[in-house]
């Protein structure tokens, strides 16, 4: 049986040999700003090539007609056979200020210290 199954024509696995134009450095800089990342010029350069290759690969999804398909939603996978945990809404002890601040780079009078916000 196995041999019969495996002689069926199979879908080709995609390969990474995709030629694509880099996405512009301006676009990479815009995405970096949205991501709160200050990239070096070298990073901007390499990300623009790499992201373009990955996005070109991802673009194969456009071959699929999904007009009548609903977007997946959390819980739909196991919904029919399980229910997920929800605890009673009751106030309970929490970490407390000292423990919550114990990893802070700049704890300051019971608060998280940060550089000036308004300059």
């Amino acid at each position: 049986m196995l041999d019969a199954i495996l002689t069926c024509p199979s879908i080709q696995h995609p390969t990474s040999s995709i030629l694509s134009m880099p996405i512009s450095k301006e676009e990479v800089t815009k995405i970096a700003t949205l991501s709160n990342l200050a990239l070096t010029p070298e990073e901007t350069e390499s990300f623009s090539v790499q992201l373009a290759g990955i996005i070109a690969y991802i673009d194969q999804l456009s071959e699929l007609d999904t007009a009548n398909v609903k977007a997946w939603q959390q819980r739909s996978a196991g919904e029919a056979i399980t229910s997920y945990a929800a605890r009673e809404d009751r106030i309970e002890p929490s970490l407390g200020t000292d423990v919550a601040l114990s990893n802070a780079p700049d704890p300051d009078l019971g608060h998280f210290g940060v550089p000036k916000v308004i300059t």
Partner: protein
Amino acid sequence: MTTNLTIDELHQLYASGGAKPSEITAAVLARIEQSTERLNAFITINKDAALKQAEVADANIKDAITTQPLAGIPVAVKDNMCTTGLRTTCGSKILGNFLPPYTATAVAKLEAAGAILVGKTNLDEFAMGSSNENSAFGPVRNPINEDYVPGGSSGGSAVAVAADLSSVSLGSDTGGSIRQPASFCGVVGLKPTYGRVSRYGLVAFASSLDQIGPFGKNVRDVARTLSVIAGRDRYDATSANEPVPNFLNALTGDIQGLRVGVPPECFGEGLDAEVKTAVEAAIKKLEERGAEIVEVALPHSKYVVAVYYLIATAEASSNLARFDGVRYGYRSETAKTLAEMYQHTRDEAFGAEVKRRIMLGTFALSSGYYDAYYEKAQRVRTMLCNDFAEAFQKCDVIATPTAPTPAFKLGEKVNDPLAMYLDDIFTVTINLVGVPAISVPCGASSAGLPIGLQLIGNHFDEARLLNAAYAYEA
């Protein structure tokens, strides 16, 4: 003192008085220290606490093994699970000095079952990678051949079990991060059903995909460890309210009439010839043991990597927004304003792969691209779920290779992120659909590198899945 012991063997040794937990723990810790330079499997060794705990366990170990499933068993935990007061780094500079104020539920359950935590294992930074080369603490090496990667992202946890640095270990699996390193290192690794194991205290990468699971030397050890860590947790709203059987009781080895689905899509072009031969032989062995082999279709297999790398990165870009230098971890010293502090902290302390994924995810969610990428991927995810629902009408478990190739060499794919992503083609679907899957060793390549058989079960059907793996292994 030997350290090459499964849980059953260790418990027999404890029962007969042949060894005590303190002796086994000391031997394991010595072995970890000796292996550090060669394998780099651990980021933090929990030496003093482990020895102390083991000495306490010595006193009544003969009773404990009858009541505690992991009494006196040395375990290792991936360093993205929080442990109170024990450094938890996620393999990242940004959490290089983080001391968690609480312990992950899965780890607390191991300890309550008598396990001795010997250390925190190395990983790809924030569990992002397939080779364990993305760690800020240096790459992990494959103990079978040190020129090769151990797989990722739970490379350290796979190596811990493969190199006898712990009996069992915990990893996390977002797109194959337990199964692929298990395959590369020749051990058993299970990704349970989404929601089966609490993720409280697991540092989030992609919340609709992440799941904690065990590595072991055999299926029995994995089944036993799953029984310990599984179950609903009031601290994780996504943990499922499903009964947890003792999975050891499911291991009868009887698979007469079990329907094993084989999807031809997973045996085509791009699959290494030796992997194909080994996995086909494994499926034939299941048939010889009484299983019925049936063809199933997974027609959208070609698209899974694209879907995965949109959804996983979109979720990661949101989850990793919390690392901003304010409340914990690294903070840049070069910034003068708050906005600069966020940007410089993240740029200085995240590695290249983490930045790449945050950028890709931000792109997929950004205005003008959301519908074409993120929304599209979620629709195809529904199609994948439908494919699996249909396949499980015809079969009880599905068999595929775990990875398209055996382990590759260190450095081989570092500069080609897409080639690295394509290594996940058989594993990522499982997380997108939420079902459980296990990798069991099924031979080796001519170079001596292990090959893994992936068996996939239906939602919350780990008992049947584990028994199929056990029947294969026996």
